[in-house]
């Protein structure tokens, strides 16, 4: 990755509007037919930092992100972002999917598309691409990027929306260590600039590196929500203990 990783972005992320945090979630239920995926989940998140969401497969981590981002509607329960109406929340957040969804265009055009859609300064493209180390691939078709590069482009595109909250759904799954570190660096920079990070991962080592606090999901509920400094040495819930010990948690 070039030194440009540390450079300043052309805008202050979310600086021109009141923060949408804290987040309050109460008794969230999500059902698909007979299957209950989230079963009375409650959660409180503060205005800063990086929250890691951990949990076994099927515990509802990705669906929780989609619910918080407004892409899904809960069966019941309440999600409150400060005092803001749900309709205005999605535009102030960004979500990076596990499998990056890139437009069938060049790398540069993928960024331009978002900048134009959001009415942002088009000149921000160059800085964003330099920030994620892709400036030299600006004219290359986005779909010819490697997995790590594609995810960095997805991150740049997310940052182009100037989000107050950045959701990341296992963005480093199946990536090599260098790509993982590059993405963690970009996410860390965003957090340092005041972007609230909510990060789903299966990688406990990554969670240790990134987390300010940890939400552990099990059985469709929050089994534990603790500061990282407490969670990793002394998890309170049996499920989290087993998970950290590498045991199979169902």
């Amino acid at each position, binding site marked *: 990755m070039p030194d440009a990783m540390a450079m300043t972005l052309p805008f202050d992320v979310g600086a021109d509007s009141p923060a949408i945090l804290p987040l309050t979630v109460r008794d969230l239920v999500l059902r698909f037919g007979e299957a209950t995926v989230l079963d009375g989940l409650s959660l409180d998140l503060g205005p800063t930092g990086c929250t890691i969401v951990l949990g076994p497969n099927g515990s509802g981590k990705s669906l929780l992100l*989609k619910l918080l*981002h407004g*892409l899904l509607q809960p069966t019941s329960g309440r999600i409150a972002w400060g005092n803001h109406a749900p309709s205005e929340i*999605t*535009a102030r*957040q*960004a*979500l990076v*999917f596990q499998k990056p*969804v890139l*437009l*069938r*265009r060049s790398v540069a055009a993928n960024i331009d*598309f*978002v900048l134009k*859609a*959001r009415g942002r300064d088009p000149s921000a493209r160059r800085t964003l691409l330099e920030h994620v180390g892709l400036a030299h691939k600006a004219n290359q*078709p*986005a*779909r*010819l990027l490697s997995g790590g590069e594609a995810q960095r482009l997805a991150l740049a595109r997310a940052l182009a*929306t100037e989000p107050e909250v950045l959701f990341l759904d296992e963005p480093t799954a199946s990536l090599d260590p260098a790509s993982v570190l590059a993405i963690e660096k970009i996410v860390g920079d965003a957090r340092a600039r005041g972007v609230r990070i909510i990060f789903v991962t299966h990688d406990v080592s990554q969670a240790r590196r990134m987390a300010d606090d940890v939400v552990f999901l099990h059985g469709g509920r929050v089994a534990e929500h603790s500061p990282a400094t407490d969670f990793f040495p002394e998890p309170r819930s049996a499920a989290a203990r087993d998970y950290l010990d590498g045991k199979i948690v169902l």
Partner: protein
Amino acid sequence: MGEAFSLALALVFSGDADLLEIVLLSLRVSVTASVLACLFGLPLGALIAIGRFPGRNAVLILVNSLMGLPPVVVGLLVYLHLSRSGPLGFLGLLYTPTAMIIAQTILIAPIVAALSRQVLEDLHTEYADQFRSLCLTGTQTVQALLWDARFSLLTVGLAGFGRAVAEVGAVIIVGGNIDHLTRVMTTAIALETSKGELALALALGMILLVIALGVNAAVQSVRLTAMRQAYA
């Protein structure tokens, strides 16, 4: 048969003025109709692809059914509207190339809409969550889908052109197959065959096939290039 084929080849390579006039009019009518059909059909296909509204399934069935519109029925309907006593008779368009373009546009717009709907719906399935996350408007979504599916939509446009350039029933009713005015390849082939003038009919048939092959090859080449560059 062999003699007719030789005569046809001679006609093609001699640059016969009548033949050239018929070919150029055919291309003008069919290309214009294809462009117009794409202008109407692509946005309609996109709206059906991304829209969720009451009666969507009925609209879908209707558009799919219209793909099989009989050309003579379209020709008859356009004729009734453009004839002197019809509601649009004052425009004086009957037996003109414009009338033929109108008929062909009506005939192929549903083909473009139905085929593009399938292409765009598949793409939208892939993009939907990302677009919702970006809070795109309906217009922005349609524009993005049409642009990103452009190489697949070339094939859709080609299907429309293929139907238009090979069509005879509608254009003969609204065009009248008037020499030097509305005679196109297909109507000329029908006329010359009925007169027993197989050389001109065969010559036109060969040109029609060459055009179809040429356009297909060009579009396929563009698509393959785009796929190699990962844009398709």
